[in-house]
């Protein structure tokens, strides 16, 4: 666990002023962007492809490959996804607040690689402070000529604009985000035909990348693809940020190499479970991901492939830890409630199904459940995610609907007894949830 920090290095070494342009430039900032102004699209795409960098927004798709798919029509656009709203996730907020220039340099590199002259940073509306920090950084960069006309002394023009969301999780989905940026309701578009790289913002080729993804780019150019690969796991290169929350002694964001185990993460890095309690369940990759349990998964390595093999995903890197005093029905209800609330309503299985699921779970938790309720829950879930597998077989336009099924899978696979106990007892066997000091 002595792997060097990458995206959180500057903020760790210079906590007081890592967000300022002076500190940024003193520590090598904008040198790689300057270099990139002299590089071709092909060179940049190739270097990032070789590095193996996967998108850090949840879908874990190769960044270089995505760029290579950009359709030839111009203008092309770049949209940075800073809508971070998946319960459990707070890593982008730290990158935005504490090292906004690192992201801006990543934006410059991405823009050059994709022949973009207009980039947008879409920040969720509930993040006014991060937005102010980013805007201040953008203003500094313009003032120095790093953005605007002829950036960094080159012939290249690049404008960057900060756009604030207004409270809709679904706008994190890339096509919904594009609709939102066009001034429409933030409803996802059908893919195909609306793949952003072909028909994105204003129906033009568009790259959507996550904050953390682009924050890695200056470092990849600086150290070279080979060294970046060496930092991580062979299949999952570089470091990545995990947001750890819930029942751990030391919650927070941790930048780690791919490949450590859940045990190391929870008991070593995050300090273990408070109050001498036992670990009961882990949500490995944000509220959307199917849950893990210690008896099966604790010694698994944390990589994209290992999570997929075990029937879940690393998603947005949000790890939510629950101790043995936590009611699994209540936790499931809380997560399903989120998806029911955030459903955009376009697809009937998602709109109706999540509402029903929330109602059934609440009924069980409140002691009004019936013996058939778990089957009913699975039945409704099956309408949204056919066959109840992972990754889901979708009946909906976007993966939000099927995500709501993840906690239900956990109840089915690991906590059937606890659900039944609610029904038999006519109430929650664990209530009230005890609060840690």
């Amino acid at each position: 666990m002595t792997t060097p920090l990458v995206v959180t290095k500057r903020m760790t070494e210079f906590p007081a002023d890592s967000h300022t342009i002076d500190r940024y430039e003193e520590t090598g900032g904008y040198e790689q962007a300057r270099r990139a102004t002299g590089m071709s699209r092909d060179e940049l795409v190739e270097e990032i492809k070789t590095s193996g960098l996967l998108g850090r927004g949840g879908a874990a798709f190769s960044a270089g490959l995505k760029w290579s798919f950009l359709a030839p029509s111009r203008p092309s656009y770049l949209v940075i996804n800073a809508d971070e709203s998946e319960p459990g996730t707070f890593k982008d907020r730290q990158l935005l607040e504490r090292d906004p220039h690192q992201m801006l340099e990543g934006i410059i590199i991405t823009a050059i690689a994709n022949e973009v002259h207009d980039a947008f940073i879409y920040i969720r509306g509930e993040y006014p402070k991060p937005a102010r920090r980013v805007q201040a950084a953008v203003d500094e960069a313009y003032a120095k000529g790093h953005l605007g006309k002829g950036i960094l002394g080159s012939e290249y023009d690049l404008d960057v604009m900060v756009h604030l969301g207004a409270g809709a999780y679904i706008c994190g989905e890339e096509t919904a985000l594009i609709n939102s940026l066009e001034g429409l309701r933030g409803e996802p578009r059908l893919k195909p035909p609306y793949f952003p790289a072909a028909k994105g913002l204003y129906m033009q080729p568009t790259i959507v990348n996550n904050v953390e993804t682009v924050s890695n780019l200056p470092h990849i150019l600086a150290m070279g693809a080979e060294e970046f690969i060496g930092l991580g796991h062979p299949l999952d290169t570089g470091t990545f940020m995990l947001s750890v929350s819930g029942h751990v002694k030391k919650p927070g964001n941790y930048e780690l190499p791919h490949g450590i185990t859940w045990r190391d993460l929870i008991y070593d890095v995050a300090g273990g479970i408070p109050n001498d309690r036992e670990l009961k369940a882990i949500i490995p990759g944000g509220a959307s991901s199917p849950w893990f349990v210690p008896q099966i998964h604790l010694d698994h390595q944390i990589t994209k492939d290992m999570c997929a093999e075990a029937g879940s995903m690393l998603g947005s890197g949000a790890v939510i830890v629950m101790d043995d005093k936590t009611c699994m029905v209540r936790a499931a209800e809380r997560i399903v409630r989120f998806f029911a609330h955030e459903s955009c309503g376009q697809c009937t299985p998602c709109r109706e199904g999540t509402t029903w699921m929330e109602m059934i779970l609440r009924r069980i938790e409140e002691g009004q459940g019936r013996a058939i309720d778990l089957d009913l829950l699975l039945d409704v879930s099956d309408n949204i995610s056919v066959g109840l597998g992972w990754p889901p077989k979708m009946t909906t336009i976007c993966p939000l609907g099927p995500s709501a099924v993840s906690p239900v899978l956990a109840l089915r696979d690991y906590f059937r007894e606890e659900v039944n106990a609610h029904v038999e007892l006519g109430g929650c066997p664990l209530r009230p949830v005890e609060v840690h000091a």
Partner: protein
Amino acid sequence: MSHWSEATQERAREIISRYPQKRSAVMPLLYLAMAEEGYLTNEGMEEVAAWVGITPAQVQAVASFYTMYKRRRTGQYLISCCTSISCMLLGGDDVLHAVEDESGVPHGETGADGLLSVEHVECIGACGGAPAVQVNYELIEGVTPDKARDLVRWLGSAQPEVVNTDEMQELFGGVRSFDWAIRDESGAVGPYPAFQPLGTVGSEGNA
């Protein structure tokens, strides 16, 4: 004929000019409309429609999609308590109840004197500092039920003109998701985020 102040109109023009297509300015202009009147009125939406050249019905369809465009009069201070999973695990529900109890305002409502609105919200990206609360979208992490009561009383007595996240964190907060490092001097003056693309609307100290 615009009902907006000269300054707001100037800002609207600037915002629109920055986007490749006018319609993209709908969201920032809706925030401007809220800043003019404290919440989003029909007149506000008609105004936005006129600026970007779409119908008021189209603007309303957009506004109703997003939870932060408040269609009803909202208190001077909007208290948002997170009750999503990570906050729930660490007592977010109790914090919400403490706020409701101390203020006498149930979630989803505004007090009769127009000072406070209370709502429960889904994850606000502060799960490492759970339970989290925002006042006019300015964040406080690691809030206990007792501290939440103190916060409500403080808003009532101090009635700060500008709500500052660092000040509130010091007074009412605890564990944070990460070290915030330096102080943020700006803050919110109403129940909408203290940020707009071209400078800050309704806040001080942040250009």
